């Protein structure tokens, strides 16, 4: 049985008003347990709207969402429970911190789950260690933390519910290179340790190509492609057409190709590019 499944999912904002917008248009996708998925799309492509359906925050205008085979909108209790199983961390989550201490803020989710005090403690400490928030920081006010720490504390607040699926909407937005790398590594470690399903929403292929296994490309509310990273890269020319960025390394390969060099263009890491270019140089007898 698939973990998450959407069936002809459509969502219309402000239906019936002059501002009516179709945000999602007939999306049918299946996500299996343990997958690492990237969702990319330009602003307004529906990627954030889609993930808010996966944990029941938004209710489809038409179509269905299933979690482990159950319709998540079957009744209120089911919808409520699915939020603990599908943890969704919004964009700029640090702007949602509110408790007196970092500890209490991370504990907000576990408390709402109705756990015992000991369990809450266990969940909070585990989540804090995943995101690299030291014990001393837990007693501090979340507003005393640095920007990067706030972001990680906020992510911990979602991880602390021990969700089966972790969804992160633009987790690295606005951070400096060091902060970005730190979050990327943290997500990878978390996945390895928990073997949970992880979904990352992003604007650009560059951010996710190296890490995820499968990519869902959203365009104007439609699922344009949903395939393995390599397969998406084999159709890389399509991305700029729908307003998306191509990784720098891929752009170089595309440029070489357009200059008449027979190189692969489904390449996105320095390592792959190096091998491909060395191969070309050797083949032509330059090296």
């Amino acid at each position: 049985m698939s973990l998450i499944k959407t069936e002809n999912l459509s969502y219309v904002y402000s239906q019936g008003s002059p501002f009516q917008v179709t945000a999602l248009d007939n999306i049918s996708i299946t996500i299996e347990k343990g997958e690492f998925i990237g969702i990319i799309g330009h602003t307004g492509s529906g990627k954030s709207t889609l993930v808010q359906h996966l944990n029941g925050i938004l209710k489809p205008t038409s179509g269905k969402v299933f979690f482990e085979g159950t319709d998540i909108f079957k009744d209120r209790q089911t919808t409520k429970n699915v939020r603990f199983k599908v943890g969704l961390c919004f964009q700029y989550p640090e702007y949602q911190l509110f408790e007196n201490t970092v500890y209490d803020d991370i504990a907000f989710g576990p408390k709402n789950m109705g756990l015992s005090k000991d369990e809450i403690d266990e969940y909070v400490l585990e989540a804090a260690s995943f995101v690299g928030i030291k014990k001393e920081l837990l007693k501090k006010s979340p507003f005393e933390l640095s920007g990067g720490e706030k972001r990680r504390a906020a992510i911990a607040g979602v991880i602390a519910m021990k969700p089966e699926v972790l969804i992160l909407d633009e987790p690295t937005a606005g951070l400096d290179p060091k902060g970005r790398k730190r979050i990327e590594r943290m997500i990878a470690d978390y996945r390895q340790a928990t073997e949970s399903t992880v979904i990352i929403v992003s604007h650009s292929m560059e951010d996710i190509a190296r890490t995820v296994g499968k990519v869902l490309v959203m365009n104007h509310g439609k699922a344009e492609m949903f395939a393995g990273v390599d397969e998406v890269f084999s159709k890389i020319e399509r991305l700029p057409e729908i307003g998306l960025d191509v990784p720098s390394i891929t752009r170089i390969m595309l440029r070489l190709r357009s200059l008449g060099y027979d190189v692969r263009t489904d390449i996105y890491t320095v390592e792959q590019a190096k091998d491909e270019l060395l191969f070309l140089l050797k083949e032509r007898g330059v090296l």
Partner: protein
Amino acid sequence: MNNDLLVQFKNVSFRYENEEGEEQNPLAVKNVNLDIRQGECIAILGHNGSGKSTLAKLSNSILIPTEGSVIVDSMDTSDEEKSYEIRKTVGVVFQNPDNQIVSSIVEEDVAFGPENLGLPREEIRKRVDDSLKAVGMYEHRLAEPHKLSGGQKQRVAIAGIIAMLPKCIFFDEPTAMLDPQGRKEVMKTIFKLNREYNITVVYITHFMEEAVLADRVVVMDNAGILMQGTPKEVFSHGERLVEIGLDVPQVMYLSKALKQNGVNIDTDILYEDEFTDKFTALFGEKNVTD
């Protein structure tokens, strides 16, 4: 020689004040010396909390140095009577476009600065139209800001500054909150202002691909200036940059990886087209197509 000096930071240090009795804050900016000349295009690089944003606010007397002085067009920013003139000379565009737009209609927001300057109505109209055209937002002049995209909002904010006809604009991480599309729009606008309108621009960023496009890169670390120079000079210290939490462009990693494998290619390559030019040159002239 010094005539074209526009903004000068002289041994500038700055400390955010704390409530009395509390522990003193560390210096946000420490002993900075920086000369900005008329017409330059400068990128300031640094990780979060390295003091970059404070520098922007020091440039037009929003903040006054704790020590040292900032001279704008031969006016000292600590001279309160000059603050009005100084802000006319040096404008600042901030990170979050939402928090710098005052009015609910694009053109009225752009008019806000000129209105404060007490200009006659016809002059305001002209400046508003010219500024909106310069940033490519003229056709949206009657739009409501909250219905625009991030990149468009940021361009409206830029128009609001250029309507005051400043000689220099500081951009404090103008693209940090934008999507790739918005980032491109805003960077294009910044370079256009520099090249076509001869406005001196200083932009703070932590995107390496943006930094390499400047004439001069200033790297901040620990509240001070760590190094500065042309992009080539600065990025030749790649390891040091990574050490302080920054990065180098991907293309530089690629050329280094090739060099390590015996390919005769420069390792200071910063731009994609520069790479493809140098790479294709390896094949000689005859060998292009087959």
